[in-house]
C-alpha cells in the first residue's frame, strides 16, 4: 500500500471544469478516462478538501461560483 502521492494540478483543474455544470461522479470518471483511477481520486480529494460542492436531488455535483 503506497501513500504520499500528490494530486496532479492539471487533473484537478480538468475536474473543476467538469463541475461547472451538474455531473454525476460517473461523468467525471468518463471525462478522465485517460487518467489512472487513483489519480482521479487524489484530485477529487483535493477538490473536496478545498470546495464545498453542491449536490442536486439526483446526486449530481457542481461547484457554485463565488459571487
Amino acid at each position, binding site marked *: *500500500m*503506497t*501513500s*504520499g*502521492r500528490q494530486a496532479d494540478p492539471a487533473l484537478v483543474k480538468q475536474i473543476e471544469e467538469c463541475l461547472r455544470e451538474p455531473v*454525476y*461522479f*460517473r461523468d467525471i*470518471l468518463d471525462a478522465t478516462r485517460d487518467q*489512472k*483511477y*487513483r*489519480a482521479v*481520486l*487524489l484530485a*477529487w*480529494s483535493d477538490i*473536496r*478538501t478545498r470546495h464545498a*460542492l453542491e*449536490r*442536486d*436531488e*439526483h*446526486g449530481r455535483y457542481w461547484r457554485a461560483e463565488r459571487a
Partner: protein
Amino acid sequence: MAARRMDQDRRNEDFRGMLARMEREGHLRRVTKTISPRHITALCGQAPSAVLCEAVEDYDIPVVGGLYWTRDRLASALDWPVGELGSRFATAVARPLSPVLVNDAPCQEVVATGDDVDLTALPIPFMHEKDGAPYISGGVAFADDPELGPNAGCYRLMFRTRREMAIDLFTASDLRRYYTRTYERKQPLPVAIAIGVHAFEHMAAAYKAPAGLNEMEIAGGLRGEPAHLVRAKTVDVMVPANAEIVLEGELLPNGWTADEGPFGEFAGMQGDLKHNPLFRVGAITHRRNPIFYALQMPWENDWLNGPATEAACRRVLGLAGIQVAGVRATEGGCCGWSVVAAIKKRAGEGRNALAALLSLPVVKQAIVTDDDIDIYNSDEVEWAVTFRCQADKDIIILSGMKGKHVDPSVRPWDLKPGELPTTAKFGIDATIPEGIPAFRYERIVPAFRSEVRLEDYL
C-alpha cells in the same frame, strides 16, 4: 484422523482461508488480467463465480467480490450444507460464544498513521452508474459504548478525501444510537472499519442481535469456537484479529450534514442522496499483502441476511406450534421480503403459519405449502399455488403493517418528516385445503422408474 486434522486446519479460519476453500470448491476464480476499479462491479455481475482480481490497475492490493452472490456461494463460504443455512443460523444464535482477545494480530502487521494515512491507496471501486463516489461496501463497523457495550454492524462508506468518508447512518441502527449519544455531547465516536473479515463475522455483524448481545458472540456461535479479536491500535475498539484491513478513526460530531449517496441499495434500486456523518480515518492497519473485499450489491448484502430471516421464520412458526419442514427466503424478495415455508400441516395451520410469518417486520409476502413440495423449486411452488389455492379463500391480505422507506410502493416521499410508512402484506395458503383428500393430488409417477437409469441410455 484425517477429519480431525481438517477440523484443526479450519480452526479460526480467516478470510483468505475461506477464499482458498471457495476456490477449491469452484466458487471463486482468479482473474490475472489487469482491471480498473471502474470495472470490477461490472465484472462481478457477469462472472459465474466470485472473482479475485489479482492485478488492479495502479494498485498493489487485489480485490475480491461476489463471495455471497448466491445461496450456493454463501453456503460454500460458511462450509454449511446449502439447505441448512437457516436452521444452522438458528442453532448458532442460541449458543453464542464470547470472543477471545489476542495481543498479536495479523490485521496489525502493517500500521500507517499520520501523513501515511491515505484512503486513495486502497482500491475502493466505483460500483454503480449513479453512485455518488467510490464506496467501501464490505466494511464491518466496530464501536463501543460504556453503557451499551461493544457493537458490530454493516455500513457503507462513500469516499470523500484521503482521510474522510461519509458513513450511512440514515436509518435506525445500533451504530446510529451510539453515534447519537456522543453527538449530543458534541464528542466524536471512536470507530474501526474492518474490511475482509470471514463470512461468520460478517453475517453476525449483519444480524440485528437482541439488545445486550455482542454480535461477535454470535460469530462465535456461528464458528463453533470463539472469534479472535484484538484491540485497535489508536481507538479503544476491538476488531477481528484476522481482518485484511482495518480503518481506525472517529465519527465526527457533525451530525447528519455530509452529502452521502446515492448508492445501489439492498433492494436492487438506486437510492437517494442523503446527509450523514463523516468518518475521519486516523490509522490504517492491515495484513502483509492485504486483500480488499468489495461486497457486490444487492445479492451479497441480501444473502448475508437470508439465513437470519429463515431462522426468524422458523422461530415464529415454532412459537405458533407448527412443524416446519423447510423455509426459503427467496432471491426475488431480496432474501427477506418474500418467504416460502413448507409445513407438516394440521387443520387451520396454513393460515396460522401465514399469520406468524407476516408478523415479522421484514416479511412482506409469504407462501405456505405442504411438506411434499420442494420449496427450492419455484415451479413446484407455483404448482402448489395453482392447484391447492382458491384465491377468494386462501389469500390473506393484511393492511396497515409496518413498512420500510426503501419500498417505493409505500410512497415514502408523501410522508411527513419522521413519519413511518405502513404497508399491506399478503400470504398465500398453498397447502391442500381442508376437506380435499390427499389422493386428489396424487402425482404422476413414471412406470418402472426405479428400473431405468439415465446413464444406461444417454
